[in-house]
Structure formats: C-alpha cells, structure tokens
C-alpha cells in the first residue's frame, strides 16, 4: 500500500488553533458546534455533564429510599415524601411496597447503566486519553460522537420510564418476575434502554483500544504510557467483550416479554438460571468497568500530588490486565444459591483470585506515598479516601466470596454495604478525585480549594455513616430490597438515613464550588499540579487540535525526581539533590 503524506496538508489547520472552549460566534452557532463536534474534548465534557445529571436523578431516588427507611413501617414517611409512599394499604405488593420497589429499581438501573458504567471512561477518559497519548483525537471521532448520541437516546428511555411510573423489577431484571410484572411498556422501555446503552459502551471501548494501539505519540512505548491509560485500556477490553452478552440477553428478554418465547420464563418451560448466568457473565466483568478507570485515576493523582515515581509501575499495569482477564471467570459468585455445589466451589475459588491483582495495586499505591512530598489537595484527599474505603469494600468481598458465609450474607444489607463501598467509596470517590485533578485543564480555572475540602469531608463522613451501618444491619439479618423492617433495626437505619443527607449536602457544596469556579474561578496556569504526563503540555485550555507541536516523549510519566514539569518553574517543584536520585527502571 502506498501512503499519502498528510504533513503537507496542514495549511488549512491554522483556524483550529484556538482554545477548544472558545465559542463560535452567536449562541446558536456555538450550540450547533457542540452538538456536531467530533472533538474528543467537547464530547468528554458533554458526557461529563450528562452522566452527572444521571447521577443527580439516581441520587434523588436514593434519598427517597432512605427517607422511607427512616421508619420501620411503611406509611410514616408520608409527610415528607408526599402521597406516593402513603398511597397503598401496606399490602406486600401494591401501594407503598410497589412504589418503594419502583424507586429502588430506578435508583439501581440509573446508577449502574447510565452513570457508573459510562461515567469515568466516557467523560474523563474521552478528554484525557488522547491528550495523555499525545494524539489529536481518538481513532474514530465520529463514532465517538455517535456513542454520545446513542447514550442520550438510551437514557431517554430510562427517563421515559421514570415519567410514566417506573418499573419494579430491580436493576437485575431477574425472571420470572421481570417477565410477568405489570407495566409492559415501561419494562420493555427499560430493557431497550440498557440494550441501546450497550452500543454506546461498545463504541467507546472499541475506539479507545484502537486509539491506544495506533495513536501513541512518537517515543511512547507501551510502558511509557500513564497508568490511567492502562486502566482505560483494560476497561475497554471488558466493555467490548462483555457488553455483547448483555445485548443478546436483553434481546432475548425483550422477546420474552413481548412474545413469551419461553427461554427464560419457567412457566413456559424456560430456564431462569440461564438468565442469571447471562446477566452476571456481563454484570460481574462490568463491576471492573466501573472500578478500573477509578484505579487509573488514583494512580495518576497519588503520583502527581506526592511527587513520587509510582512504585511498581509494571505491576500496576499488568494487574489491570489480570483483573480484566479474571473478571470473566467469576460471575457465578452472584449465584451461589442457585447452582450446584461443585460449580459454586469452583466459582468461589476463582473469586478469591481477583483479590490478588487488586491487592497488588493497593500495596503499590501505599508504597508510592512512602517518603513522598504529599500535598493535601482535594484530589489527594479523595485519593486517600479511596485507599481507605476501597480496601473496606474489597475486603468485605471476601466473606461474600466464601460459600459458608455468603449463604448467610447473600441478599442482605451486607451485600448492599459491600458494593456501595466499592462503587461509591471506590469509583465515585475516584471520579471526584479525577474531576478535581483535571478540572483546571478542562475548564482553565481553579476551584476553591477550601470549600472543596469541606465538601470532601462531608462526603467522607456522610458516606461512612450511611453505609458502614449497613454492614451491621446485614449481619443481623436485614434483607435487601425491603420497604419495611422489624423494630430492632430502627436505630441503625435512622443513622444511615441521616448520613445520606450529610452525603447529599457534600454534593451540594461541590456543585456550588464548581459553579463558582466556572464563573469567577481564578485562571489556572498550564500545569497547576506539576504533572509530567502529556496533557499538562497543552495550553491552559487545550487548543482544538490539542498540541502546538506533535509531542515527542522523552521522559517517563512519573520521573518527578529528574524532570521539571512542563510549564512550571523549578523553584515551585524543586528536584531532589541529584545524589539522592536513584535511577529506577
């Protein structure tokens, strides 16, 4: 094949050399420009705002649940949440119970499929993966935009379901309940929503894999890549290989619902356990779609804000791939009670394997901090919180992975607490770390450090008060997904509910900090934290084509002891005396 050299084709590029946030004339032209953009940065920002909006919707649902759970009986919260909770007679399916199930399902489905799965990769990943690679864009920019539209289109169904009364199946859509519960159009719409969202997930993942393979800057080998990229790369592999399975599952489910094809519905001769296998074959790997990008952020933040070379770079990189691989072998641990003993034993053993690469990461992060010059900025505070909270989440996975203990803990609040510690304490906390870390680069302005720290404190306290109590509830026998409970659990539930409002308050403060920053925030320089990865070589607000010159990689992403950060003064980020520098590589 012959090559057309495009270096000569660059004369027309000059007009792209403006900061990507610069408007295009009038407001309509600017909006049009954003809606049709193929710039990965704009798409990343659009994704950021849409997933955060979904987070808001899911969060409101969560608060409603917590309010209902403030009292052991069902009707009492009526005064606070309006007539809806009080509507029924307190019978087990109709009325209040039904409404509780609906809100719970919306919370779960929105948070999982519309917030946390696309969350970090599609927003921060989209923005920073090409920048960190030194590329001008992702491999397939139009596919990238398509992915956002597909995401919005899919979420539209989700919002439709909310507005028309919701569904009560739980986010797991287990058959036969999901094929028989009333609310035909809503259940179909929600399944369709997840099916469609799957495409957006695949588009993003596929795009990132190809980008990493083909668009690394000259001089950047695989082991010169920032660890955030390794994490996103591993995530993308899971997205591409797991999502089609949920696609076919929900396609079959759709037909089950519409035509009773009898594949999942036991009343028609179908096999509900087959559904569970299909569902978890996707949904377990997907918990690593949620957590791996978060781990990538933590690697970046810990290194930059403690000015230390990451300890065990390769171990962290490979553990991401190892996690991605093992994650496909453990889905059965969600079904210990619905499968044979031999299968359960094997799945249990495999489950413990996951803990190994995970622990490798945690130990490496802690070793990175040792003797670092730690700056307690908001991103760093969040990263430290992550280490603490994620460890609790991961360690409580072990009793769930062990057969004997899981029989007791399965479907209890212990599971609820476990996955909130990993998904919230892990992913959301890391997301917050990443947003603060990269906020100056995305919007060219600093946020108010003082108030951001206050907010992060509120989030930390609120989160722990909300969810640590749930470990006790679970071990004492409180089952998940119930609107009412016996009186003994009242105190713990009430503490949990109070905590959830502290948590919400933390987010409100964050919201104000962000808005304040966007309007009057102090202008950020090119590289406020002294990072060494390529995104910090761009202008304070990156140009439309990212870099003024194609970057050439001459140092590693974490060579803090020997490289003055781009755009920084040496006196702000002093290098250690040279005789202390050991060359590690």
């Amino acid at each position, binding site marked *: *094949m012959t090559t057309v050299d495009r270096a000569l084709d660059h004369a027309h590029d000059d007009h792209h050399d403006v900061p990507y946030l610069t408007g295009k004339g009038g407001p309509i032209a600017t909006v049009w420009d954003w809606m049709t953009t193929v710039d990965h940065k704009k798409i990343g920002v659009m994704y950021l705002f849409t997933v955060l909006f979904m987070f808001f919707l899911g969060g409101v649902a969560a608060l409603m649940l917590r309010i209902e759970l403030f009292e052991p009986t069902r009707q009492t919260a009526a005064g606070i949440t309006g007539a809806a909770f009080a509507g029924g007679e307190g019978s087990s399916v109709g009325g209040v119970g039904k409404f509780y199930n609906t809100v719970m399902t919306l919370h779960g489905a929105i948070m999982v499929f519309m917030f946390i799965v696309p969350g970090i990769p599609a927003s921060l990943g989209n923005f920073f993966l090409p920048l960190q690679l030194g590329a001008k864009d992702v491999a397939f920019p139009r596919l990238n935009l398509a992915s956002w539209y597909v995401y919005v289109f899919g979420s539209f169904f989700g919002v439709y379901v909310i507005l028309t009364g919701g569904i009560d199946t739980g986010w797991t859509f287990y058959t036969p309940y999901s094929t028989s519960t009333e609310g035909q159009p809503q259940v179909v719409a929600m399944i369709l929503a997840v099916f469609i969202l799957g495409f957006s997930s695949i588009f993003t993942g*596929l795009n990132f894999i190809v980008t990493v393979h083909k668009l690394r800057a000259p001089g950047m080998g695989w082991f010169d890549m920032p660890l955030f990229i390794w994490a996103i790369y591993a995530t993308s592999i899971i997205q591409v290989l797991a999502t*089609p399975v949920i*696609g076919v599952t929900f396609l079959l489910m759709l037909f089950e619902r519409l*035509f009773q*094809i009898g*594949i999942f519905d036991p009343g028609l001769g179908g096999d509900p356990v087959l559904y569970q296998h299909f569902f978890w074959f996707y949904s377990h790997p997907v918990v690593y779609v949620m957590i791996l990008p978060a781990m990538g952020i933590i690697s970046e933040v810990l290194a930059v804000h403690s000015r230390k070379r990451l300890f065990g770079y390769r171990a962290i990189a490979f553990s991401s791939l190892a996690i991605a691989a093992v994650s496909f072998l453990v889905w059965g641990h969600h079904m210990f009670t619905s499968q044979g003993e031999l299968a359960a034993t094997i799945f249990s053993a495999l489950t413990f394997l996951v803990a190994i690469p995970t622990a490798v990461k945690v130990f490496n992060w802690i070793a990175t901090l040792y003797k670092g010059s730690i700056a307690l900025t908001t991103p760093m505070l969040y990263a430290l919180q992550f280490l603490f909270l994620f460890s609790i989440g991961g360690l409580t996975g072990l009793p769930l992975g062990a057969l004997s203990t899981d029989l007791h803990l399965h479907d209890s609040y212990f599971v609820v607490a476990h996955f909130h510690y990993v998904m919230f304490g892990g992913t959301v906390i890391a997301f917050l770390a990443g947003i603060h870390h990269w906020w100056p680069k995305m919007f060219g302005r600093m946020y108010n450090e003082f108030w951001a720290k206050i907010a992060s404190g509120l989030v930390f306290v609120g989160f722990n008060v909300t969810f640590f109590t749930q470990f006790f509830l679970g071990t004492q026998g409180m089952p998940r997904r119930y609107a009412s409970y016996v009186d003994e659990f009242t105190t713990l539930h009430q503490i949990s509910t109070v905590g959830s409002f502290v948590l919400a308050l933390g987010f409100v403060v964050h919201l104000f900090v962000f808005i304040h920053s966007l309007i009057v925030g102090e202008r950020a320089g090119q590289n406020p934290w002294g990072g060494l990865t390529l995104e910090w070589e761009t202008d304070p607000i990156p140009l439309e084509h990212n870099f003024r010159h194609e970057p050439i990689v001459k140092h590693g992403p974490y060579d803090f002891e020997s490289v003055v950060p781009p755009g920084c003064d040496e006196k702000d980020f002093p290098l250690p005396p040279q005789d202390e520098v050991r060359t590690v590589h």
Partner: protein
Amino acid sequence: MATIDTRASGLTKQEPLWKRYVPGHHWRTQDDEFDAAKIGIWLFLATEVLLFSGMFCAYAVFRMLYPEAIAAGSGYLDWRFGGINTVVLLISSFTIAMAIRNVQLNQQKWATINLSITWLCAAGFLAIKFIFEYGPKWAEGKRIGNLFSYPYASTDHEHIWWSIYYMATGVHAAHVLIGMGLIAWLIYRQRKGAYGPTHYTMMEGVGLYWHIVDLVWIFLFPLLYLVH
C-alpha cells in the same frame, strides 16, 4: 513504500476519488488510518461472535433440557434449503473477497461484477429463507413464542425450539439484510471511483463483516438442520 503527495504530484479533479483520498486530520499516515480501521473491525467482529454465542448457549442448554423437543424441531427443517443457502453464502463470501482483490488491482469493472454477485447471493439467501422456510412454517402455525399454534406438536416444549430457531436465524437474517445495505453502498461508491489500490478501507471492512455473517451461518446450519 511509495508516497503519493496529493499536491506535489499535481493530481486534479479528473483523477478518481481513491487517488484524492486524504486521511483524517489526526492520522500521521494513511497506513495508520487503515490499520486502525482494521483493528476496529476485528474488535467489532468479536462483539458479533459474542452476540451469537449467547444464542448458541441457549441452544445448548435447551438441547440438554428438552432433547426430544429439539430433535422433533430440527426434524421439521429441510436440510436441502439450508444446504442451498450455505452454498449461496459461501459463493458470496468468495465473490466479495474477489471484489476486494479487484479494487486492489484497479480492475473496477470486475469489482462491480463481483460485488453485484455478492449482493444477489445475499438477496437469494433471504428469498429462499422467507419463501421456502419462514413462510410455509409460519402458515402452519410453527411460530415464535405465544404466536405458536401448530396443532400437531409431538412434544411439550416445541415452542421453545421455534423460539430459538426464529431468534437465531432471525438475528442472522437481520445481519444479512444490513450486509445487503452495506454492499449496495459499496457498489454505489465503487462506481464513483472511491476505491482503488491505495484506498479500499470500506471494502475491506464490509468484506470482513460479510465473512463473519457467513461463518455464523456455517455454525447455525448443522446445529439447526443436521443434528437431531
């Protein structure tokens, strides 16, 4: 590797489209762009395989659960129609591969002919499927799910067989239909001169897609028609 510089070599509007092709602004070379597209397609094919693997899984499970129903079900299928369709698809896979070879050698007329044969084969496949298979079966009441109304079913779970049959072959047929759209697009673009020795990314991509559609059928055919 030779390098063509569009401007320096003074190519004008009279030149065919493929010679004037310029890669996306973010690519260093056209080769990089081509390689990327190819990796992308292969990943996409992996998702296709996984999509169908779900159906194959369901097939295996119900074969285990209700062997009589599956045996009875496949007894209703005529292997000759399946066989003819297999041959038709194999020919089409060959002709699309030839068409790609043709554009690489700039044999534009042959490329059109081969693409057209491919398209006709795809249409033939669907015609056979609908006229000789779906149509008569549907008329007898051998339908999907709750539409199933065949009065002479010999086993209890025959409706499940038909569900699997229609889901698997239906999703496959949808892929054939999409393929026909893509191939029609290829013919249109190829007639305009969009593909030639230095640029045929789309042809390559659709070609790979078409092979996977073919391959899925190669598995569906024996499982549904031949194994009892």
